[in-house]
């Protein structure tokens, strides 16, 4: 929290464009995608795993949504055409993201493939499927209703900020107030003790990866809607931004410890940093270097805190 305030003070001293309402909403709108993904990533990491596939799943779900909305499903041989409403595409995209999450979870729990490897494979698979679905070209021109999701306003607040805030609120409730949340912490804290305490570890893990897949799909809908196009290479590297947000937020990569609130703070810090560096005309190459340095600093400070 202190780091974020210091960061904001420094940037606002250097640039008069930073502390304006327009810019603040802009930053919030930009980070809402990372917040969606990072909430799922936080659950996965607290449960002792990792999900590298979220960026590709985001791209695939965004592309599927765009394709269904624009072209529907056409099977000429059966003389079949199914058109999709905006709501229909949203549900389909969320469903596909969740199914890919179930797949991740089953590979990890049934075949005992380490989560790093299983989701690395899914990263490639989902990216390949995205290319197959789009033929490598962007799908654009999706209509005003769909664009509202990523660019609209509702009661003075951007729609994506509403969406990500609601997701955050639900996730906090789950982690703090439900058995599922306690079980997720328990599995990451000590999987063997969790099993011997009667927790169905496999089931809980599948649920966690399913949520992560569904939230990646939600991120995909936001990105696609904001750009009014599904880019086949969308979301590349998003898994790393998301892991960065989780780690900056104080969640331990070894599992069992962490919070959604911390992750949101981490995502805001990354978003503000990105935004500030752009406003200050820092070259994109230096932006990457500085972002890496911030991640390191955050983790080192966190370690020092734990020791005291």
């Amino acid at each position: 929290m202190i780091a974020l305030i210091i960061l904001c003070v420094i940037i606002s001293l250097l640039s008069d464009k930073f502390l304006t309402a327009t810019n603040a909403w802009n930053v919030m709108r930009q980070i809402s995608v990372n917040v969606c993904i990072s909430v799922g990533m936080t659950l996965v990491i607290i449960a002792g795993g990792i999900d590298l596939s979220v960026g590709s799943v985001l791209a695939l779900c965004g592309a599927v949504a765009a394709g269904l909305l624009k072209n529907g499903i056409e099977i000429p041989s059966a003389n079949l055409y199914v058109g999709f409403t905006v709501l229909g595409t949203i549900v389909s995209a969320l469903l596909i993201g969740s199914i890919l999450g179930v797949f991740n979870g089953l590979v990890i729990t049934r075949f005992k493939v380490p989560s790093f490897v299983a989701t690395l494979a899914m990263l490639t698979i989902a990216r390949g499927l995205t290319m197959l679905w789009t033929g490598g070209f962007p799908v654009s021109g999706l209509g005003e209703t769909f664009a509202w999701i990523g660019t609209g306003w509702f009661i003075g607040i951007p729609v994506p900020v509403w969406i990500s805030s609601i997701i955050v609120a639900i996730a906090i409730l789950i982690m703090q107030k439900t058995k599922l949340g306690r079980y997720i912490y328990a599995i990451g804290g000590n999987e063997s003790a969790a099993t011997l305490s009667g927790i169905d570890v496999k089931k809980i893990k599948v649920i966690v990866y399913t949520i992560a897949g569904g939230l990646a799909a939600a991120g995909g809908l936001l990105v696609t809607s904001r750009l009014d196009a599904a880019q086949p290479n969308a979301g590349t590297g998003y898994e790393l931004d998301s892991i960065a947000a989780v780690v900056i937020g104080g969640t331990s990569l070894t599992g069992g410890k962490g919070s959604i609130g911390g992750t949101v703070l981490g995502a805001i810090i990354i978003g503000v940093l990105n935004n500030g560096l752009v406003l200050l005309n820092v070259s994109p190459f230096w932006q990457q270097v500085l972002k890496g340095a911030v991640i390191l600093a955050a983790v080192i400070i966190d370690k020092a805190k734990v020791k005291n």
Partner: protein
Amino acid sequence: MLSVGSLKLHKGEVLGVFGLMGAGRTELLEEIFGAEGDETSLQRLDIQIEGKTIQIRSPLDAIRAGIALVPEDRKKDGLFLDADVKENICITTLDNILNESKRVALTDRYINDLKIKTSSQQQSVGTLSGGNQQKIVLAKWLATNPKILMLDEPTRGIDIHAKSEIYELISKLAKEGMGIIVVSSELPEILALSDRIVVMADHKITAEFEASQATEGTILKEAIPKS
């Protein structure tokens, strides 16, 4: 009340299981508890509780059948060391939507009943002494109201005072009607606690004694593998 092959446990009885290292004592408890690796390797055992044959494929099945297991290695298999006292004690009895006042009351009850020395319910269990950690593992299982309590080396790495408290607790629970199995490699402990003693060697039960008839010599003789 519990029968596993030739092993019988009666209501209100403390059954001591003695064996040397590698005799298969821990494996026996884990198999009864459904905790031995994959589902496929399980259920070689014919387990009956109160005359009814039951299938135990996972620890969850065992818990539902009223069985509890205090494992040998409490740090590895029993506790969430980074989590606090309340989380550890309540993990076996959570409602879908947490009831905070119920959890606090349950934790309070066991801190008092078992005389757990902790600064608060929020203290992390990794910072507690071995004896208090063991009491927390006991508490989380007592909270499930088990009919059968299995204890694997219940006093390993515990100071003398906590040890005698745990002995008293075992006797008290048996008097209240719980069936208790104690696995131990300490003969004096087995002799002091048990009503009946079975001896294991080479993954088989080699002998059974009434506690009054057993001596260290006769037990040890049966515990040494023939051949």
